[in-house]
Structures are given as C-alpha cells and as structure tokens.
C-alpha cells in the first residue's frame, strides 16, 4: 500500500493561514490502513486544529468527511459540496489524493496534511517498511523476490557494496543490507551461482525518469462503457 505520515501540526496550521473554514478530508484506503489519514485520524486532526484555533483566538470552522478513495472521480466528487463551502480542503489522502482532488474539484484549494512516504508493507505492529520502488520494470525475478531498487540505500544492482557489515547497511545500523538478504535467500534456495552474473544497467525510463507515467487498458474502458467483456 501507499504509506504516509501526518505532517507536523505547526506546518499544517501554517499552510492553513488565512482560511476561515476548512474541510478535513480523509481517505478510506491505504492511508486508513497505515493509520495516517482515515476517518479516525481526520477526527483527531480536526479536534487538534479546533483546539489550537481556540487557544489562538482565531476563527476556524472545521468540518470533516472521509471518502472511500481520493484517487477515484466518483468518490472525490462527494467532497465537492462540503468542500466548496469552505476556504480549503485539507486532504489526508496521499499525494495522489491531493493532486486528484485539486484536478476534479477545480475551484477549491486542496492542501496536503500528509507526507507520502513509500510503497510498503505492514511488517510489525505499527511498523510499515518500504518494499517497492515503483520503478516500472520489475527486476526481482533476478534477486529472488527482494527489491534492491527500493531497499538498497544506493539502489545497487550488483551488490553488496563495500559498506555491508554484519547484515546491516553502511547508512544506518538499523537498516538491513538488502544485498545480505538477497545473498541469504539465494543461498537458501541453492541459487548462489546466479549472483555471479552481472545485472545490466537499468532502463529508468520505464519509471519516473521517463516523465509522468500513464497506463491505459482498453478492457477496463470497455467495462466502464458497459460493453460486454470476453
């Protein structure tokens, strides 16, 4: 899922400067699961902002709404009515939600309340950890399901570098060296010989370096148009 974290309250407050009414808008998908921007977090942030406003003696009308997804038009449009009555929408969706709400709702300002961090998994109670770099051309068949693009601090394809020690990355002893993990996995599968091969330079144009990505599916469009699919 997409993992995000709430911005510091001071920063949020600063970005709302001049607003007299704000709709705090949650998203019911990824950020609900990673407990950054679901209905519950909307409630918490809204009351914190109300309290702050009261303490500062400023006028701030805070409303709340959470939709199923901020990355789908039909749900984002649900924010239109409430949002248009406000000076701004404070989106607790990921960066996609902020951008898409801006695009769909047009007349109202959309301000981010979260920092969108990465694609990650819930690896422990309350812990999310990055697992994919979204590079557009998956190479983990060569590394037995473990991604060095996302998880090596240097995105090295022929690791480990000279900084790997006792299974940890040179950057931080709290970070596992992913190339140690790859090595151990190859070893346990009896495939260490594969690591003798040099992985070729990556085609970064498949990902963000190729410019903003778009993908289209004719079959999905056909379903949307109500045509029968095979």
């Amino acid at each position: 899922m997409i993992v995000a974290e709430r911005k510091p309250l001071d920063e949020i407050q600063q970005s709302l400067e001049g607003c007299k009414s704000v709709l705090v808008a949650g998203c019911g998908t990824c950020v609900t699961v990673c407990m950054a921007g679901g209905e519950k977090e909307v409630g918490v942030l809204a009351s914190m902002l109300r309290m702050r406003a009261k303490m500062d003696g400023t006028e701030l009308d805070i409303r709340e709404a959470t939709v199923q997804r901020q990355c789908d038009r039909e749900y984002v449009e649900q924010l239109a009515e409430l949002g248009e009555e406000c000076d701004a929408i404070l989106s607790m969706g990921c960066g996609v939600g902020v951008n898409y709400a801006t695009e769909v709702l047009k007349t109202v300002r959309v301000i981010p309340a979260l920092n969108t961090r990465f694609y990650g998994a819930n690896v422990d109670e309350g812990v999310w950890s990055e697992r994919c770099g979204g590079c557009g051309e998956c190479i983990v068949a060569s590394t037995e399901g473990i991604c060095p693009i996302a998880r090596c601090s240097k995105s090295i394809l022929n690791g480990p570098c000279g900084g790997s020690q006792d299974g940890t990355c040179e950057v931080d002893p709290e970070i596992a060296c992913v190339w140690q993990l790859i090595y151990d996995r190859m070893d346990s599968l009896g495939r260490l010989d594969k690591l003798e091969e040099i992985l070729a330079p990556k085609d970064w144009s498949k990902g963000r370096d190729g410019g903003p990505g778009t993908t289209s599916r004719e079959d999905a469009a056909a379903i949307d148009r109500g045509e029968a699919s095979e």
Partner: protein
Amino acid sequence: MDMKSGSNLEKMLAAGHFAVTAELGPPKSADAKAVSKKCRYLKGIVEAANITDNQTAIVRMSSIAGGVLALKRGVEPVVQMTCRDRNRLAMQSDILGAHALGVRNLLCLSGDHQKFGNHPTAKNVFDIDSIQLIQMVKEMRDDRLFMCGEEIRNTPKAPIVEPRMFIGAAANPFADPFAFRVVRLAKKVEAGADFIQTQCIYDMDRFREWMRQVVDRGLHERTAILAGVTPLKSAGMARYMRDNVPGLSVPDSVVERIAGAKKGSDEGIAFCVEQIEELKEMEGIAGVHLMAIEWEQKVEQILEATGLLPRPKVEADEAPEEG
C-alpha cells in the same frame, strides 16, 4: 600487445614490477596550491596517486581537475569516479574530458552515501553501479562505443577518438558477506577491471584468507591486485577506524599496539612498514596502495623503509609483450 591506456601504472604492472600507488585528496576549496604541495611529497616515488571524488560525500575540488593539476606537477593521477553524483551521461562526458586532458587511469566506485557528508539532503544518482561503470569504461575503450551503442566520433566522417583508461576498481575483503567478497571481485574482473585497490588492511588474517580465495580462482592473473594500507597516526585514529568506519576491520590487538607505544605515530608507521613487507611476499599481490590520509609527507619514509625506493623506470617500448 599494445598498452590499453599507456599509463605509467599500467606499464609498471605490465613490466612485472611491484607497483606503488598513493592517495591525494583534493582540497575543500579552489586552492590549486594545496594539490601542488601534496604533489611535492609524492612526485617520483609512486607510480600514480588516486585523486578522490568528493570522498565521504564531502564536496571537494573535482577529481578530474585535481588529477590534471597533479599531472602538471609530475604526479600521474588515478582519477576516482563515483556513481553517487553522476548519471551515465555525465560520466561518459567526464571520461571523454578526462582523456582529452591527459588522464589515463580511472577508478570506478559506488561512492559513500551522501548521508555521511556535508550535504546529507542531496539527491543521489546511482543511475548505474560500480560494476556497470567498469563495463561502460571498458566498452568505450575496447569497443569504441558509448553505452547507448553509438560510435565515439564527432560526426559520421570524423575519426573515432575513444577514451583509453586503465580501469581500476575497489575491493573490500572486510565487508560482508565474506564468502561473497571474492565473487564480487570476480564480477569486477569480468566487467573489465585491470587493477584492484583494496580497502585498507588491518586484519591481515582475514586479508590472507581472502587472497587465498582470489588465487584459487586465478583472479590475480586477470587483474593486478594492489593491497591497501593506511598508516595509523594515533591510537585515537585506530579506535575511530575500528568503531566508526563501515566496512573496515581493525583488530583490538592493533589498537592496543598503537595505544601501548611510546609514540603512536612512530608505531603506526612501523606497523605499516611491517604490513608492506608481508604483502610484498604474498602470492597474488601486484603492489600496494598506500593511503596516507592527510599524511602524504610520510609516504617517502615508509617506502624507503620497505626498500621500495627508488622506483624502477619503465618506458613504453621496454614493457614486455603481454602473453
């Protein structure tokens, strides 16, 4: 066979001499004199000196500029190039420029992560990794092609003028997983590394074990292995290296030896001299890479004490054919 690059270092190694390289860190300023000063300590006593590339991710004078200044001062540079700061375009253009300015040795590195340096909020590049960089430099030299497959010529009618580098790479026998270190070296050799400089050695037992694996695989016959040594200036430095430098192994016995000596710096030099004596005899070792960090003035003394001075002279036509 013709020389690959014709560098002094290449000729020395091809002639079978035990080679000596040193390290010359460029200044954290635009001060050309700082390079000249270090060159005075190194000129004529080493085959070449590595010019570091924003080492430990701290901004310094560029390694190519530093290398050209060294060249003018009579010290052959090994220009270091990391994958941290440049993508494949910038690397190839820098390699063309370096060759045009007379550089003939290039050491290909991943580079320390920017977190360690003075711009920790920088975006890193890592478009290609060090092994892919070695491959690219070799293809530019031997196939006379850019990485994209185009010929290295200005126009379709212009002559091909390819950059000819003697290609170096680093190896760290002290990083983990230990069993893989020799495999990674093999990958670098396969990619085209003509010479290897190792991480500085303090743990000779582990180094010896690694070299045994290197020799078993015959890698020392395909690449020239220069063993890295760094004289310790003090017990404090030894402790710092032991506790704070990732991928380095400093046994407690070494720290204790320096700490217990009357003068730590003298003991550090004595230890370094002993190491070089041992390395000279070790199977598969083609030379030493003496990294006297901000202590270039001691290089001569250390080499003198190990009988490595004066350096033998080689000319292109004296170098034997490679068999």
